[in-house]
């Protein structure tokens, strides 16, 4: 057997690294802009393409899929080749993967500001882009498994297990949560409705955090931390326990995003129980990471990459302690819909994902360019300003979150809401939002300093695009001489496909136990006879609500708390959402809940409020939507929409679609005529009329028909 010479592909690693830096900075700039919009409505820039509702998803998509996504591929492509002692399977596939992923990001940058969105959080991209994501993900998978198959190292190191689990789970999550019926090239409706749609979305949403923001990063931690510290991982056994229990438990935790909603109680409790259990594997991983540095803490003082790693792992520990706490119903009752969640997410995003990415970049770029980092001082500056940025971000947001949660629930001695006007809370936390944007600015300055530092490093060195290496090939016919090698548990590490199937089964169990009963057992979603499908005009209005991203600030689900029923009205029932493709419950209350907004105000109030929110609600931070009164409603797809809804099970009568636009015009005329009586002249074919129709319908089905509500609701 002869030593084989081959090369590692560093160019693809470098390319993903550059993409991560560029998209990271863009994503952070957009983040800063949306942060400023929350205390200064003028930061919405007065046009529809840059309002909060449309660009908040741009921020989240940019940082999750563009910044973190590219960083994952950078780390995976570097470590996979070395752990397997093989070049990536195909250079062509690596290139298709790289450019395909960047094109997907560009398509997100183009479509989201245009209001082309499915409204599912972190899955906003429309169906053609969803298909492109699937294809590129498959390319990544083939490239990864191709490399695994032609490897020169018999056993798969634990980091690769995390990569395999990431690949298979993201594929499952993406496909199940992208089940849409296309209406046109850039518009579709989800197959699921209401409670079921909510369950699928948060099963996806939570596990996007688990399998996109966590498992690949844990894999990278298990590879890069031992390398940086030059010592093996503290406990390899613990890393295996960490792996299996983490992927098993994580998948169950999604329903903790839906506590106190109309999701069946047992599903909520399952979510809580598994979320609490999740702390064990998460902390196992954190402890394993930190203890890897045992005896090497002196290096942490000297080495900026290790400093970033330590803060990243600590942030992971904090976020994964906080997650289970937030899942407890009592804590969730206060924290949900507030800035507390924003703080929680950003400890993970800025600390864990951001800092680990920075550590990798500072470690990888000089090595691949065979030079030293341009400035260690500047990297150290980045570390400190970044850490300060996280603190300035998180602390004010926690403060704002506690303030919101408590003020919303506060009653006077007479038993009335202390702050009946929602705006009181909004105005109260504005200073916190200003401080938060300072934190974001500090963090962004650090990232820009890093980009400069890395660019200078690259210019000073020369990329070793193909790094030479050598290793013994694997024997073709492997004979298990070692007794231990014959055992099932050892063979698993040599059989990647078997491993893939096993991890697939493990991650399917949780989702299936939660979803199958919710989808198949009628009693889980009791229907309400008085709940009727939307009229064509309301349906069009609902699509405008989706286009403008109203769901980013307004929830549509009232929890069964006295503080909420007093403020908003009757709590929300599962049966009210059966025609909602997609559900629009939201996850944040920057503004008040809107589920019972129907009939609360007159049409003229809504008109004036949309044109100038401060005219109706002084001090409001909602942007003005004057273009809704200027743009004509597009009714060319109404027929297709009615047909699609019928296909999805909404009981529109056969032939209704032919009358739909006539009915739409009649209802619009009525609203325009009503506005006329209030001295507001607006043509009935303007978008604002449809939106008002939808807002006035919301939550009204059961108002006058309380007897139709099932007894168990």
């Amino acid at each position, binding site marked *: 057997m002869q030593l084989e010479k081959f090369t590692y592909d560093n160019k693809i690693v470098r390319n993903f690294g550059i993409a991560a830096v560029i998209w990271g900075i863009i994503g952070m700039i957009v983040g800063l802009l949306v942060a400023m919009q929350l205390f200064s409505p003028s930061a919405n820039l007065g046009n529809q393409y840059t309002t909060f509702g449309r660009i908040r998803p741009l921020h989240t998509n940019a940082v999750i899929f563009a910044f973190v996504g590219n960083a994952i591929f950078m780390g995976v492509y570097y470590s996979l080749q070395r*752990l397997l002692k093989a070049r990536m399977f195909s250079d062509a596939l690596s290139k298709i993967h790289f450019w395909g992923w960047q094109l997907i990001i560009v398509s997100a940058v183009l479509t989201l500001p245009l209001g082309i969105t499915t409204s599912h959080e972190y899955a906003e991209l429309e169906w053609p882009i969803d298909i492109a994501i699937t294809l590129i993900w498959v390319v990544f998978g083939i490239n990864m498994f191709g490399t695994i198959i032609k490897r020169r190292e018999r056993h798969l190191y634990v980091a690769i297990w995390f990569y395999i689990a990431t690949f298979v789970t993201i594929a499952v999550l993406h496909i199940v949560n992208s089940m849409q019926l296309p209406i046109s090239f850039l518009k579709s409706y989800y197959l699921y409705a209401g409670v079921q749609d909510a369950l699928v979305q948060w099963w996806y949403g939570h596990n996007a955090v688990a399998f996109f923001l966590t498992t690949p990063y844990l894999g990278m931690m298990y590879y890069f931390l031992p390398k940086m510290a030059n010592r*093996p991982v503290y406990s*390899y056994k613990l890393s295996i326990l960490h792996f299996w229990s983490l992927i098993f438990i994580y998948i169950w935790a999604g329903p903790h995003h839906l506590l106190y909603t109309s999701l069946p109680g047992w599903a909520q409790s399952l979510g809580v129980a598994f979320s609490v259990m999740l702390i064990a594997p998460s902390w196992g991983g954190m402890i394993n990471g930190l203890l890897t540095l045992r005896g090497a803490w002196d290096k942490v003082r000297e080495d900026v990459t290790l400093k970033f790693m330590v803060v990243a792992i600590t942030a992971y520990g904090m976020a994964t302690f906080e997650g289970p706490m937030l899942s407890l119903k009592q804590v969730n009752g206060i924290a949900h819909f507030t800035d507390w969640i924003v703080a929680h997410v950003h400890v993970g995003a800025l600390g864990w994902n951001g800092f680990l990415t920075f550590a990798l970049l500072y470690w990888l770029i000089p090595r691949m360019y065979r030079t030293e980092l341009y400035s260690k001082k500047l990297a150290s500056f980045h570390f400190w300003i970044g850490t300060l940025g996280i603190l300035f971000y998180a602390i004010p947001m926690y403060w704002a979150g506690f303030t919101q949660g408590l003020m919303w629930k506060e009653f006077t001695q007479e038993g009335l809401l202390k702050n009946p006007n929602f705006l009181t809370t909004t105005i109260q936390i504005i200073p916190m939002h200003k401080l938060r944007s300072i934190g974001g600015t500090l963090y962004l300055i650090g990232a820009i300093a890093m980009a400069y530092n890395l660019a200078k490093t690259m210019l000073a060195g020369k990329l070793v695009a193909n790094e030479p290496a050598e290793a013994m090939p694997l024997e073709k016919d492997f004979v298990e001489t070692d007794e231990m090698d014959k055992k099932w548990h050892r063979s698993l590490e040599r059989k990647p496909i078997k491993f893939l199937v096993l991890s697939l089964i493990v991650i399917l169990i949780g989702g299936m136990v939660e979803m199958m009963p919710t989808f198949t057992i009628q009693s889980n979603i009791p229907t309400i006879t008085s709940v009727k499908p939307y009229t064509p005009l309301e349906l069009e209005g609902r699509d405008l609500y989706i286009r403008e991203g109203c769901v980013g600030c307004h929830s549509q689900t009232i929890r069964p708390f006295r503080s909420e029923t007093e403020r908003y009205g009757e709590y929300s029932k599962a049966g009210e959402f059966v025609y909602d493709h997609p559900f629009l419950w939201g996850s944040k209350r920057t503004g008040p809940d809107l589920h019972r907004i129907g009939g609360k105000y007159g049409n003229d109030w809504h008109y004036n409020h949309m044109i100038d929110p401060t005219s109706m609600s002084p001090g409001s931070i909602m942007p003005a939507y004057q273009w809704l009164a200027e743009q004509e409603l597009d009714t060319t797809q109404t027929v297709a929409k009615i047909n699609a809804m019928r296909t999805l099970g909404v009981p529109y009568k056969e032939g209704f679609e032919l009358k739909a636009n006539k009915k739409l015009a009649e209802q619009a005329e009525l609203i325009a005529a009503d506005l006329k009586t209030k001295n507001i002249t607006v043509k009935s074919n303007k978008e604002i009329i449809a939106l008002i129709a939808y807002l006035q319908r919301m939550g009204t089905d059961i108002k006058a028909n309380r007897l139709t509500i099932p007894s168990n609701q």
Partner: protein
Amino acid sequence: MFKQIKDLAGGEMYLISSLFIFMVFFILVGVYLIKMNKQHINNMSQLPIEDQENQINEYEIH
């Protein structure tokens, strides 16, 4: 505090069976870990560190 987990209004079976599935799974992983060979674990945990030795032009940045 545990009322939220105990009080399931007829949905107990879902929780009990789920926790049972997890327990079985956890025991299996436990057996797997106990049966692992120490030398093998040592070799595995050295993988990220030793891969540098296989590179022809080793370099370190100090």
